[in-house]
């Protein structure tokens, strides 16, 4: 369940009110004198849970990327791509790729921690 879908669980792919580029404020439940409505809290809790699930999904996918890179390095198959190829570089680049992608989700978790 995505952040976008969870905001309108009753709809099946319902059209949104605004475009991504015009960036108008989305419709929100009315504020009350006692604080946010319970539905807002539910929405925020769902978004928080979804971001963690996104992180788990990315970690599994990153593992799936690193395994073949390690196999290629261990078996020396990297030589197939050319004489100037750097075998250990494949694994290091793979680790760097994973750190960068997971870092983006980590930035999201920290920077938007109120969500």
């Amino acid at each position: 369940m995505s952040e976008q879908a969870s905001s309108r669980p009753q709809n099946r792919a319902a059209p949104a009110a605004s475009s991504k580029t015009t960036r108008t404020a989305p419709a929100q439940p009315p504020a009350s004198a006692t604080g946010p409505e319970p539905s807002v809290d539910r929405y925020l809790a769902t978004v928080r849970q979804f971001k963690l699930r996104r992180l788990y999904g990315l970690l599994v996918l990153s593992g799936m990327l690193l395994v073949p890179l390690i196999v290629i390095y261990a078996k020396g198959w990297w030589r197939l791509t050319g004489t100037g190829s750097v075998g250990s570089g494949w694994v290091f680049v793979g680790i760097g790729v994973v750190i960068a992608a997971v870092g983006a989700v980590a930035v999201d978790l920290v920077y938007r921690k109120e969500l």
Partner: protein
Amino acid sequence: MTATTPAAPGPSLPERSRAADGKKTRVGMVYAMLAGPALGLALGLLSVLVTKPPFNLEQPTGAFAIVALLQVPFGVLGIAVFALVSGTWRDAYRLFGHPVSWWTLFVAVGGFVGDLCYAVAAALIGGALAGPIGGLFGVVGAIISGILYREKILRWSTLIGLAGLGIGIWVVLSGGKVVSPTHGIYEFVGILVIVGAVLTWGFENFAIAAGTDLMPAEGFLWWRAFLELIIANALMFALFPVARTMAGRVWSDPKLITFGAVIGFGWAIWMIMGYYIGIAYAGAVRGGVLAGTFGFFFIAFFSITVYGVPFSSAVIIGSVVMFVGAALIVSEPKGYLARKRA
């Protein structure tokens, strides 16, 4: 009698919503940039392999085969695993049979043509040259979205940014003598083909922004990749008999299957994080320009540093100039913002 001091009122819900929207845009730009290296790892390897056996038996069939047999199947597998673990498979399932799913077919056709054009161009001019040019799709998508969404992107910083991109591409092209495997008319045709990819991907960039207004990004993406898998394989096996020989060799060679896993899973990471979430959060202009410029720069960078393509400083310098141009396009000067808010 003691007077009670009222608690300081916090920001109203609309204010909080606007602040959250701004943060979401900035985070989308971070996603678009940090997923870039994954695309470089994947398509850099594809660009090198497309000129090796069995893909060099016949071109452009070999380029078609590497997309249909390695990149997309492993990409669909990676996206499916991500969807299962993250729970977004429910979104993909809910789209099935809904009228809006026709939009995913439209995007899949555009994405497939772009991917195929990239592989053909990589066989002709190499990934180190095709990468930076291919990254211009973000600008095409920004222009299309700017026109269709009536977003005012025409300001002095955009014009300087576009000039920077032009100069950057000119410098990158001067490195073609070193990094391109072909020269003369073949190199020229390769550049035309990658321009075709830029236009098709540019339209996909806009279509993602429009589609994620209607559908959750990850569920939308799975259908786009899955339909590309069906279309690519059906067309390839129907139209190119040599592809059957190539398919037999690819699927019986553990080396090529392992390389395919790197290409497909790396592509999947970029598609999820950089392309779809980046554009869904930051919009076609900011998300698209950053995903394109960063992701495709890394194809060139990894090609000449890790995958053994001869080093060309022109490619690096040109790409840096392109970064500066892209930064000017996606940033909004303080004076412009103040006028806009007023």
